[in-house]
């Protein structure tokens, strides 16, 4: 992994400064992109999200990669092939996501492929990937049912869904709709599912086991589980991709797994 870039530190800092960053990425010793998510936050998220999987030699598809933190992390963890995709953030005039991704990739010298494609248009023609990262995307979709079905079509072993959640007090599978700017004054937020809803949908799509863990930064005590992480495993997945869930994770198919979600 040798940096491809011939920019001076000065030039690199100037290019970093023209972009609004979501991920803090250390591009050179001492040069970190000023992301809304700090390096420390991203380190904890990476461990929570990717920790259970042995990615060596495997393929990873990152949906909504934005600045690329989890694409780069997957490559560093030994993935043979990583395909980073995005459209909204990559074409956004302020976020300049694709420019940011390409700048970071060149600096880090990591071999990660890119494809500018919205998940609403993905299907099996993209191929199947051992691990699909669907992080922070579900609740931004007007039709998350359709896109989750598309995600199933491109998953070879495990689909990892990280999402805002809601309706945690309800026992039945449900999702809350947010018209206009109802949620966080952001008109790109559409749905907040509860864990029973995610279990129901993922099972309907043919996933055999669904594990859940709380988001490392939205713990029950602090934010009443406003975000959760779901690892959905297809029948026949390899042990390296499906057998290393620590105590933070619970099998949602187990008896009583839903009990303490409700306040």
């Amino acid at each position, binding site marked *: 992994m040798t940096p491809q870039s011939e920019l001076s530190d000065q030039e690199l800092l100037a290019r970093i400064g023209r972009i609004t960053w979501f991920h803090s990425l250390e591009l050179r010793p001492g040069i970190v992109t000023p992301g809304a998510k700090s390096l420390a936050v991203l380190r904890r998220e990476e461990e929570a999200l990717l920790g259970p999987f042995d990615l060596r030699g495997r393929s990873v598809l990152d949906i909504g990669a934005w600045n690329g933190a989890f694409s780069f992390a997957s490559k560093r963890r030994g993935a043979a092939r990583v395909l980073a995709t995005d459209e909204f953030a990559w074409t956004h005039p302020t976020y300049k996501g694709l420019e940011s991704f390409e700048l970071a990739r060149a600096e880090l010298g990591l071999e990660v492929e890119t494809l500018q494609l919205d998940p609403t248009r993905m299907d099996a023609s993209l191929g199947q990937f051992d691990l699909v990262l669907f992080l922070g995307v579900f609740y931004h979709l*007007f*039709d998350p*049912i*359709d896109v989750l*079905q598309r995600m199933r079509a491109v998953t070879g072993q495990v689909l990892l869904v990280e999402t805002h959640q809601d*309706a945690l007090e*309800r026992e*039945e*599978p*449900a*999702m*809350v*709709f*947010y*018209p*206009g700017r109802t949620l966080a004054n952001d008109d790109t937020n559409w*749905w907040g599912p509860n864990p*029973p*809803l995610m279990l*129901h*949908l993922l099972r*309907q799509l043919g996933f055999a086991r669904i594990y859940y863990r709380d988001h490392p930064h939205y713990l029950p005590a602090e934010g009443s589980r406003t975000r959760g992480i779901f690892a959905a495993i297809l029948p026949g997945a390899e042990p390296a991709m499906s057998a290393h869930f620590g105590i933070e994770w619970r099998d949602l198919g187990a008896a009583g797994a839903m009990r303490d979600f409700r306040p």
Partner: protein
Amino acid sequence: MTLGPPLHEQVAALTWLQSLRLAPDLVTPGAKPEATLEAEAEALFGPLPLMGMTLLEIGAGNGGFSLAALRRGAVSAVVTDHLAWSLPGAEAGMATMLALEATGAPAQAMVLDPRALTPEFGRFDLVLGTAFFEQLFNPILALRGMSSVTGQVLLLETAQAALDEARPMLTATTRPMPYGALVSGWAPNPALMGPLLRDLGFVRVLHRAHPIEGAARGLYAAFKPDAAAGLAAGFGAPWRELAMPA
């Protein structure tokens, strides 16, 4: 051309979802009684001036609602279903064909998944879906398709849930269907229907409870921007206007 068996024998040979009066002395032995079907048809169609309207029915079962709309003045109907007509051993499609033929209704029947609808399919004054959300894996995609072919008004009859919730909510359900399958689908609450249908291209949504089953099921009438003036004029109580977000 050879004469087939008499109509009552053809009727008796099939499994029926709905009780349809095919002749003064011949009612199909359907799971849904004739009186229930008529009460639902009256609740759905009573307020609407159907005269001259074209109809597309989604999830028609045996086509009872299409036949009712034609009796009430609609000029033509495209009668469709998907699951109930295509599951192995399903007779509902054949039964529908027989009912349409026996009544001489100006209607055509076809297997149709509403998720596949696009404007190229045509444009219908009235689009109707009954027992709607509870039979669909993806009602959002189905409604998007149906909106794209609705010229004036969409009528829906559906299971409801989360009635205690003021927030718009969609609940997943798994229910046994009269055609013998356990089907996973959904149930909205009324708070969802205004904003959801607004985002799918409708400008006005009216709602009432089911005439027999009450609030466990709901009826909805959603109007397109270019619906004829006065089309909603007949929707008095118990219909009520749902608030639309700005």
